């Protein structure tokens, strides 16, 4: 029998080809091409020039600082995100919607404003500026300020990933665990955590990517001291402003490489645990 009409969920071939072409063109021009150019520029003067640029002490210092900032911000925001999602999903309390709105704040506020907030609080003219100076504690234009700004900006990633997931899963399994004699901690470890581990992983990866890449907030509190308070994105900007294009593209390529490694890691896990993922989505 010939087909007389399309299924309600089926579109004509020309439309499918057209939509596919638009999507591919968009990705190619706006995402893949610039990324390829970054790597091309980084290798423009040959591998040995690239290697020299990477071994530059200020560049290495910026890599170290970025890794320190992410290394502190990501674990803290992971713990916070689990705690926030747990309390929002599993308990009812007044002010719950307000708390959810607060968690979203770093997404809606411009990172530059976030940085300025810390200047207002910890700066020389700020609230705690005086007493901090008296005790010789340096937060602004030092590593603590950079870490704080990174924490602020990456605050919502884990919580945002987990809240809808945990709300959707409800409390049934936790209640069942309690009636079977499990303590709260056993319930979390054996029931809740295995149920949220994929969402948690995505949240942590996103949080990490943003922590490494954050520019605006960190730029305000950093003070741009070469080799001391420059993170990788700031270092790219500094090299670029000084017409050191080869150096700028080298660090940019390093940064992009870290992001790509994250993606590869995620895809590997998805591929390795494909069965488990599929099982988790079935009900």
């Amino acid at each position, binding site marked *: 029998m010939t087909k007389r009409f399309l299924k309600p969920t089926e579109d004509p071939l020309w439309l499918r080809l057209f939509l596919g072409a638009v999507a591919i063109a968009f990705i190619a021009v706006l995402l893949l091409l610039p990324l390829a150019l970054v790597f091309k520029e980084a290798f423009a003067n040959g591998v040995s020039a690239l290697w020299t640029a990477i071994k530059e002490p200020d560049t290495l210092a910026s890599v170290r600082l970025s890794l320190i900032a992410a290394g502190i911000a990501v674990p803290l925001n992971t713990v916070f995100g689990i705690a926030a999602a747990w309390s929002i999903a599993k308990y009812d309390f007044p002010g719950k919607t307000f708390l959810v709105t607060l968690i979203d704040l770093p997404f809606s506020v411009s990172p530059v404003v976030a940085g300025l907030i810390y200047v207002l609080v910890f700066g020389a003219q700020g609230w705690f500026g005086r007493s901090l100076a008296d005790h010789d504690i340096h937060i602004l234009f030092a590593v603590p300020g950079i870490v704080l700004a990174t924490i602020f900006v990456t605050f919502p990633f884990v919580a945002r990933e987990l809240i809808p997931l945990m709300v959707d899963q409800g409390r049934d399994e936790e209640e069942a665990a*309690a009636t079977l004699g499990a303590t709260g901690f056993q319930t979390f470890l054996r029931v809740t955590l295995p149920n949220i581990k994929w969402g948690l992983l995505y949240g942590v990866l996103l949080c990490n990517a943003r922590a490494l890449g954050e520019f605006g907030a960190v730029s305000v509190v950093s003070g741009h001291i070469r080799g001391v308070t420059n993170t990788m994105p700031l270092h790219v900007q500094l090299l670029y402003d000084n017409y050191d294009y080869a150096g700028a593209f080298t660090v940019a390529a390093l940064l992009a490489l870290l992001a790509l490694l994250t993606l590869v890691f995620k895809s590997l896990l998805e591929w390795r645990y494909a069965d488990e993922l599929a099982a988790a989505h079935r009900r």
Partner: protein
Amino acid sequence: MSLTVDTVAKKFGRFPALNGASFVAPQGSFVSLLGPSGSGKTTLLRILGGLEFADSGTVRFADLNWLDMPARTRNAGFVFQQYALFKHMTVADNIAFGLKVRPRHRRPSNADIKKRVTELLALVQLPGLEDRYPSQLSGGQRQRVALARALAIEPRMLLLDEPFGALDAKVRKELRTDLRRIHDHAGVTTVFVTHDQEEAFAVADLVAVMKDGRIEQYGAPADVRRNPRTPFVSEFLSA
């Protein structure tokens, strides 16, 4: 060793879910809480299981002040309408959960746990399904696993919240016959919530008909059917 529920009340916000429900069930009896939705039967069951707190009233079970104990220490097996199986665990791990979370000095050896899982699967008539995941089972099979999991902790009390509500009529009938057999085998005091009067009357020793957070009538199925005490009960039973 009987279960005494005395004027238990509970409000959700301003909505009174329970208005002083009372009944006494002898040790080892099978009680059905029967009523339309919103009559408070599930709330009463969840209070018995320690999943909800009563605002007032007392419950005594054996010589225990039941409501002062957290869910974890009541040792009351709970079966949920939507099964609430641990999705990421095999059937065997689901059933063994209550044994594995025990403190070390009360935890059976791995060999004993394995033996117990096999016995329980035989009891609920699902032999050999140890390594399946809940997503690979039918609704009726899942509820059998949930029942086995609740029985694994050798519960003092078995609480079932519309356990067959999501299943088709034929499976419901099979399961309730099996439930009664398992109840008689284990000799455990059982409270069973349902809105299906045929089911309640077929399986229980005692039926509590509930309305608006109160128990309208409580007694043996035959008595309740023969002498409905209020217009609501006679109307509900003839529906």
